[in-house]
């Protein structure tokens, strides 16, 4: 018989005192690391060039806050479009039709193989490659609509387009990995119930793939957030663009870079917490018991540990 809770023998004698093992090497390393960290923090506080007064002055300034907003918008929307694009590309990649899988491969090859900065600048200058964008029937003179490229593809739009298309290529590989991680048997079971490909993907395979997809996507999102700073090269009005604008006027470069860095850190920290809860939610069914939330963990740390004696 297999039982899940092996009961302790009845009327157990008084439990012996447990002496935990001491990790001397680990403790020494911790002391050294903490000492170095202390020196670093002290050095930052003492250093006059950091100029914490300026940092405080600009941290909540209108231009910086506006930049933060634009950065968040850019990151969230481009990441969302990138995810959708990634799913489409990943599914295309698995297609038995070589035209579909080949196109997907080519896309990923191109957008992963060229620098994001180059792509952004390219989209900003797209107007000089194609002056007009036309909606019509190819190889005829039937034009339904025509606009100048520069009216449509403003620098802001170019920023979104550049970041999204680039992200799509990375997400495609992440999603593909997630799809491959789902057991073949799941597909067979779903097919044998009469499900068709679309339903199967939506209801059975993707929800399971999500578990595998979330951690690298969280990573991608954090990269995306920082990569938005590249749009400063095409006047993207984001946090970094505005930081540059301010310090090119008052020449307080380092304090303003500290302001920007602190804001990036704040946003990534919020994202990290969000990712944790998302992972927990999608772990449903995958593990028997969910891991504790950070708050539960904190509580466990604060409440003194007791020897478990039942």
């Amino acid at each position, binding site marked *: 018989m*297999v039982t899940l809770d092996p009961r302790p023998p009845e009327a157990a004698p008084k439990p012996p005192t447990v002496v935990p093992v001491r990790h001397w090497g680990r403790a020494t390393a911790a002391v050294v690391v903490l000492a170095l960290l202390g020196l670093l923090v002290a050095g930052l506080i003492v250093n006059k060039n950091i100029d914490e007064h300026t940092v405080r002055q600009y941290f909540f300034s209108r231009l910086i806050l506006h930049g933060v907003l634009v950065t968040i918008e850019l990151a969230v929307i481009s990441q969302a479009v990138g995810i959708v694009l990634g799913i489409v590309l990943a599914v295309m990649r698995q297609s038995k039709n070589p035209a579909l899988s080949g196109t997907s491969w080519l896309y990923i090859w191109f957008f992963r193989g060229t620098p994001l900065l180059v792509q952004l600048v390219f989209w900003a200058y797209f107007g000089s490659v194609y002056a007009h964008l036309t909606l019509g029937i190819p190889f005829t003179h039937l034009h339904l609509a025509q606009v100048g490229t520069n009216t449509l593809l403003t620098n802001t739009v170019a920023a979104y387009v550049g970041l999204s298309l680039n992200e799509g290529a990375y997400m495609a590989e992440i999603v593909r990995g997630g799809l491959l991680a789902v*057991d073949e*048997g*799941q597909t*067979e*079971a*779903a*097919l*044998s*119930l*009469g*499900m*068709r*490909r679309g*339903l199967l993907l939506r*209801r*059975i395979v993707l*929800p*399971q793939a999500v578990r595998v997809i979330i951690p690298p996507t969280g990573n991608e999102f954090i990269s995306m957030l920082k990569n938005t700073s590249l749009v400063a090269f095409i006047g993207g009005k984001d946090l970094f663009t505005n930081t540059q604008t301010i310090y090119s006027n008052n020449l307080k470069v380092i304090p303003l870079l500290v302001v920007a860095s602190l804001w990036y850190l704040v946003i990534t920290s919020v994202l990290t917490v969000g990712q944790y809860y998302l992972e927990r939610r*999608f772990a*449903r*069914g*995958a*593990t*028997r018991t969910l891991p504790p939330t950070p708050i539960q963990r904190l509580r466990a740390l604060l409440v003194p540990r007791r020897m478990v004696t039942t």
Partner: protein
Amino acid sequence: MSASVHARGVRKSYGLVEVLHGIDLEVAAGEVVCLLGPSGSGKSTFLRCVNHLESINGGELEVAGELVGYRRDGDKLRELTDRETAATRSRIGMVFQHFHLFPHLTALGNIMEAPVRVLKRPKQDVRRDAMALLDRVGLADRCDAYPSQLSGGQQQRIAIARALAMSPQLMLFDEPTSALDPELVGDVLDVMRGLAKDGMTMLVVTHEIGFAREVADRVVFMDAGLVVESGPPRQVLDEPREARTKEFLAKVL
């Protein structure tokens, strides 16, 4: 009685290797047929052909009077579309050795998924029927459990309920108890026994000779991609005619 499964000279190759060399097999409606045979003899492959999970390379295969994967159109055979294949599959239940429950759905969710999404039946009705099915497999109290929280035997019974929820005309079982601890096998076999008693048409690949002897109307012995012999359980299991059957039974019993 009309034939539920009608296979005549069914051939199946993977690449250049032929693994089914012309299978002849009939399952009448309401009949329980047990398929025995050594590992690699092609039992799973044949079952998967019946369910359209694999396409056949020769011979003819009909389920409930319909060709598998094709449609007769005058003197032509037209390949079925995805939609038609899916519709046919929805009338055939399949139970796998490793259950393949959907891990992100509860027991109830697993059972309700296909009737709701494929048959587009109202959720309330489906839930009621699903609860009745859970009761039938003895797991009504575990309806909210996720597969990872269930034992193998419980998972397999949920998998059977999931297949039954589509009201199939035919149930295929591929070694439903082979992955289970010995003490869990009985519960699953009980459920299958009940199904057989209720008149379900069943094609069962199994190594449970006792179950075959007791429940099967007919036993079919396969080896190396061919049917070696078939007949009533007493005859095939107790007085096998073919040497290969004798050899296999000697090993299993």
